[in-house]
């Protein structure tokens, strides 16, 4: 048996150095990461990377910063299992492994020139934040921008700084709702679907970008369709079990005749392409 180093292996990881860790909620932390070779990560909003914590494993995590941000990138990680918990134990200065970016991001070229409505549920705000900040950094290229954000309760609210920033801006309409309020919560209470009807939409020129847990999609989409937004203009990002990110391991395959691999054909899809998928 010959054992040798495989220099061109696609399984090689790049070194990422954590330069900042910020706790956002009891279960989510924000990591700012710099590639050690100093080279910028070349990515699009909606793409993801495979993060390695050696000895524990790899997990796919969305890039949540905008590519317009230079020098470093950010990941928002929920402690959900082994790798993600191990990430939570890391501090600034620690190293992680990075493969990617992978997948098809949001179709920014298609979105340009149109009105946008962003609908984010829970952790879905992570990939959407990348796109929202990208849109804000290129604000002139887009029409009206509405941001609808929902989460279970105020303590689970992510990206407080960004939310404040969006709230303050005149060029985006920001709406947030929580399923369950708390004594110091003065905002909306109710499911995310309850604030969609209130948004004025010109279906001719609006794209809806929706990211959230699988259960959310069905209800949000039916609200959006009621607003006459075309199926092709509803953009979603799907989650699947994922190992390789290279369309080989088979885990992320989506149950539909079209045989999509979430990691390569997605994670971003327009609704018309996946509407027959039973479990989104």
């Amino acid at each position, binding site marked *: *048996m*010959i*054992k*040798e*180093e*495989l*220099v*061109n*292996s*696609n*399984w*090689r*990881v*790049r*070194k*990422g150095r954590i330069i900042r860790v910020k706790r956002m909620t009891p279960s989510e932390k924000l990591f700012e990461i710099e590639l*050690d070779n100093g080279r910028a990560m070349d990515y699009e909003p909606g793409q993801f990377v495979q993060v*390695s914590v*050696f*000895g*524990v*494993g*790899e997990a796919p995590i969305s890039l949540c910063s905008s590519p317009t941000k230079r020098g470093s990138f950010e990941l928002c990680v929920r402690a*959900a*299992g082994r790798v*993600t918990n191990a990430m939570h134990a890391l501090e600034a200065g*620690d*190293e*992680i*492994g990075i493969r990617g970016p992978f997948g098809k991001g949001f179709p920014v070229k298609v979105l340009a020139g149109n009105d946008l409505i962003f609908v984010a549920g829970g952790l879905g705000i992570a990939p959407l934040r990348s796109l929202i900040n990208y849109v804000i950094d290129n604000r002139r290229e887009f029409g009206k921008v509405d941001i609808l954000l929902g989460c279970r309760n105020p303590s689970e609210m992510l990206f407080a700084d960004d939310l404040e920033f969006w709230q303050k801006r005149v060029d985006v309409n920001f709406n947030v709702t929580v399923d369950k309020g708390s004594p110091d919560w003065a905002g909306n209470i109710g499911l995310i679907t309850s604030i969609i009807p209130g948004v004025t939409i010109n279906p001719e020129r609006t794209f809806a970008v929706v990211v959230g847990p*699988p259960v959310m999609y069905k209800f949000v989409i039916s609200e959006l369709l009621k607003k006459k937004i075309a199926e092709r203009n509803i953009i979603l990002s799907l*989650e*699947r*079990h994922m*190992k*390789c990110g*290279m*369309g*080989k*391991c*088979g*885990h992320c*395959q*989506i*149950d539909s*005749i*079209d*045989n999509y691999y979430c990691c390569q054909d997605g994670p971003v899809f327009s609704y018309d392409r996946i509407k027959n998928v039973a*479990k989104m």
Partner: protein
Amino acid sequence: MGTHTRYFILRKDDLNSFIVKLSRNHKVVAPVSKGYGNYAFTEVTSANDIALKHIPTILPPKKYFLPQKETMLSFSTGHVENAEALLEHENTVIFGVHTCDLNGIQCLNIVFSERPRDYNYLRRKDNITVIGLECTEYCDEHASCNLMNSNFPNGGYDLFFTDMGEVFMAHVNTQAGDDLVDSSNLFKPATQAQMEALYAIRDAKRSRFKDEVNVDRKKLPAIFDKSENSPVWKAIGDKCLGCGNCTNVCPTCYCFDIADTLNLDLKSGKRVRTWDSCEVETFAKVAGGENFRSGQAERLRHRHYRKFRFSLGKYYRFFCTGCGRCTRTCMAGIRLKETLTALVKEAA
């Protein structure tokens, strides 16, 4: 020598010398009987160990291209630059590969050459020489190789043997195959009469091998388009044990899992790739509890779609070779030919 295709003759008595010679410079593997009518590709050093007449082995030769467990990286925790991508391979000759398995290897070659390429697979493949062996008879009632168009040689080998009684006819398909023929000094060019005999064998075979399911292969994808909600899936799903045997033994199943293990120093370790199976409960389950394919019927449907529908869109070919392994290995008695027949009937 010439660039035209070449046919050679090896006397059966010389097979042993051939294998012995090969085993001097290569690891030679071939089908060996495991008892109870089962065979497995196993290392051999003489032809006596080889089961020339064999039905498809328990595992297909894919285990040499994509091992059950494979180290992809070695690493030390906390220090990313110490990680090294690894390849373990061995100069191997696989002897006695049936046409269905040649087809299977070709399927995998396509998958792993697609970008981003999997160099572990590709480099290992480059170190493997494949010697095919023709089936002149059906191996058993579970095969559907005629339906899947894999009972005749269609490339995918370096050398291809056909048993012609006293002698083997050997077709040289690659330079590597030619080198083996040349260096062994055991082969003679085939005569015209011997070529005629080969054609006769093929003709006889054509009359014996008939589509095992009464359907035109080309219609299968369309049938699957209509079968998403077929009751067939629930019927077989209820019988299925979810054991994953059918995927592990399938020459074209290649799904895998990746996991890290630490050494006892707790500071270094390796990242290992292991075969995985879409038939086991956890395959599509994610942290948080959602299972994107939660029922056995859905999982079985998925497997069948990967063989007869999905792969056509992505790779323009069926990912079933008709080898019949999935049927043979299934203790629940789920039979591919029966499932296909039921789907065909329903769609009619």
